[in-house]
Structures are given as C-alpha cells and as structure tokens.
C-alpha cells in the first residue's frame, strides 16, 4: 500500500470533535491496518488532543476577554497511512501548555486528586499510542502519535 494522507481542518470548537473522531476512525479502518480496539484507542487519542486545543483556545479567549469562536482558530489533523502503521498529527494555533507540568499532579488514588478533574488527557494519549510526541510553543501545540499495525505486512 502506498502512503496515503488524509487532511482535515476544523474550527477549534467542541461540536466538531465527534466529526474528527469519525473521520480519523474511518481513515484508520481503510485497508484495515488496525483492529477495532486500536481504532477505539485512536478515537480517544484524537479526542484528547483536540480537547486540549479547544481548552487552550478557551484560556486564550478568556485572557483577551472575548468569545472563543471569535478567534476563528482551527485544528489541523493529518492522518498518514502506511503499510505498517498509522501516524496522526494534531496541531492547533497557539495558547499552549507545558506537558512536563503534568508530573506535579498527585496520583489518582490520592484523595487530593479528587480536586483535580483534568490532566488525564496526556497520560491517555501516551498510554494508548505506540509513539507519542507532544511539543508546545507560542505558535501552538503539536501532538504526533503512531499506532503500529499488529502484524506488519511482509515485503
């Protein structure tokens, strides 16, 4: 199979998230490289990455005292299919966070953890992918994940 790429760009707004999950899951089922469980993993990963982008935009809009939709910000998703893996890149347009800050959270079993209702997204992205790379800067946050096919196609 040749390398195929699907590009998707949506407004960074919650109501587009289900569409993104549907398109990326549908793309990953082409061929199909991944079994249903891994496609479900990918749906969670994409949802988490886009949610972070939407939340970052909300923070930026709040700081500027405007409605998030007024920023006209988008999320760009690329899904690369090759013979042995699915690679997905989710990139937003700014208002990033520091992924290393997440280490400061107490363990989920710690009673004080109940005060924190967020911060579970990045651990999920890392746990559900075979490779995860998260970079963040003033120009935006970029999440790149790879899910390997179970049985690589022999050449």
């Amino acid at each position, binding site marked *: 199979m040749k390398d195929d790429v699907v590009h998707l760009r949506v407004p960074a707004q919650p109501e587009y998230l*289900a569409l993104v*999950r549907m398109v990326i899951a549908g793309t990953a089922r082409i061929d199909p490289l991944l079994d249903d469980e891994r496609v479900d993993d990918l*749906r*969670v990963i994409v*949802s988490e990455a886009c949610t972070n982008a939407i939340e970052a935009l909300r923070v930026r809009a709040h700081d500027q005292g405007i409605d998030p939709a007024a920023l006209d910000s988008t999320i760009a998703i690329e899904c690369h299919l090759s013979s042995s893996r699915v690679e997905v890149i989710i990139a937003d347009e700014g208002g990033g966070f520091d992924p290393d800050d997440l280490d400061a959270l107490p363990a*989920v079993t710690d009673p004080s953890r*109940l005060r924190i*209702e967020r911060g579970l997204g990045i651990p*999920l992205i890392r746990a559900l992918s075979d490779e995860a790379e998260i970079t963040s800067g003033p120009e935006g946050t970029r999440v790149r994940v790879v899910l390997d096919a179970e049985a690589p196609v022999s050449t």
Partner: protein
Amino acid sequence: MIELGLELTERDGWAVLAVSGEVDVATAPRLRERLVGLVGEGRTRIVVDLEKVDFIDSTGLGVLVGALKRVRTNEGDLALVCTGPRILKVFEITGLTKVFAIHRSVDEATVSA
C-alpha cells in the same frame, strides 16, 4: 448537536442516571449539569449507568470525578455501572478503577453499595 441521552430512574433510594451516546467536551457539560442538579436536589446516592455509552474521554471522566467529590462532601455515594471493554479501558489506564466502585449491573450497584 451530538446526542447525549440522560435518563433518570429510581431504584431502592438510588437515583439511577442512564447515559447513552458519546461523552466528550461537547456533551460533558450536560452530564455535569444533570449531576450537579441531582446533588442540589439532595439526591446524593447516585448510580451512573454507562452501559449505553459508546465513547468517553478524559473530559467525561473529569465530570464523573467531580460528581464523586460532590456527593462525598454531602455524605453520599456515587457508583458506576460499566461492562464495556472500550469504556473500562480508559478507567483502567487513568487509575480510576481504584477510585470508583464499578459494577456489572444496576442491581449489583444498588444492592452492594
């Protein structure tokens, strides 16, 4: 608008909220609002039935953690019903299986809790 089903029934003094559809950043506010409303009405023994949930991510998990915190500060309890592997998986990975009582049926949740 993404569909999120929220159906409330009563079982042995428990408020049983059956959730269906996808719980994400778009729909989670409706779930949060409903759970906050229940606690506000003094319903602090709650079972959240996730059997008909097709998808949940950390935003949905956050709402459930928030609700658990809320009922506990009101001396209540919140139990979950979930058997679907794809939903259980996110609870397992995030360590929340140690935080929530997760039951196989509404009967089990309302009897044992």
